[in-house]
């Protein structure tokens, strides 16, 4: 199993540009999550999904959108990038039977 994979590893965006951060898992997990990690702030939940076709907002959803058309994939969309979205983004997944979340390696995003 590859576990949770994320692409790209690093990206530089200009203000106002849009992009999609990709996340995929091959563990057949129903639950998937997007977090952002800022220095000294820990991780904050952006969006999560409990299964294909079902998504919900977390603590900091503004400026982001998600979709979940398949069990495996959970992309995160930034429509109009802002400097405040400079962060490291982590995707995670878990089964419905346990609380343990498995994290991907992260995507570092710099908005200039």
């Amino acid at each position, binding site marked *: 199993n590859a576990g949770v994979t994320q692409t790209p590893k690093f990206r530089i965006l200009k203000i106002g540009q849009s992009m999609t951060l990709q996340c995929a898992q091959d563990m057949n997990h129903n639950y998937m*999550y997007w977090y952002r990690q800022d220095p*000294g*702030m*820990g*991780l904050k939940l952006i969006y999560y999904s*409990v299964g294909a076709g079902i998504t919900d907002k977390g603590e900091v959803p503004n400026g982001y959108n998600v979709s979940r058309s398949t069990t495996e994939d959970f992309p995160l969309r930034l429509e109009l990038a802002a400097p405040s979205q400079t962060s490291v983004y*982590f995707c995670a997944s878990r089964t419905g039977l346990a*609380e343990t979340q498995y994290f*991907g390696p*992260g995507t570092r995003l710099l908005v200039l």
Partner: protein
Amino acid sequence: QQQVKQSPQSLIVQKGGISIINCAYENTAFDYFPWYQQFPGKGPALLIAIRPDVSEKKEGRFTISFNKSAKQFSLHIMDSQPGDSATYFCAATAGANNLFFGTGTRLTVIP
């Protein structure tokens, strides 16, 4: 508002020493308290977790102490090793979907 408060922000320990990281919470609905370990450039990985019906859980050199009445829990790393140098996050959740993380502790173990 930080749901889980973590201290210290950074910690330096000699090899063989005990590392102690503390966390506190307010929401009594929290029912699962994991600790995650993160190495530079990597995603967090579950280290150990506890539920509020026990006061202590030990796995190897890692122990969680849980004080339900004080709404505090802590991670103890015994016989700390240079390979333990990483950032540690406590977290808490009620129902497992919204995991609230502490702000992290950067641990450095000096050989």
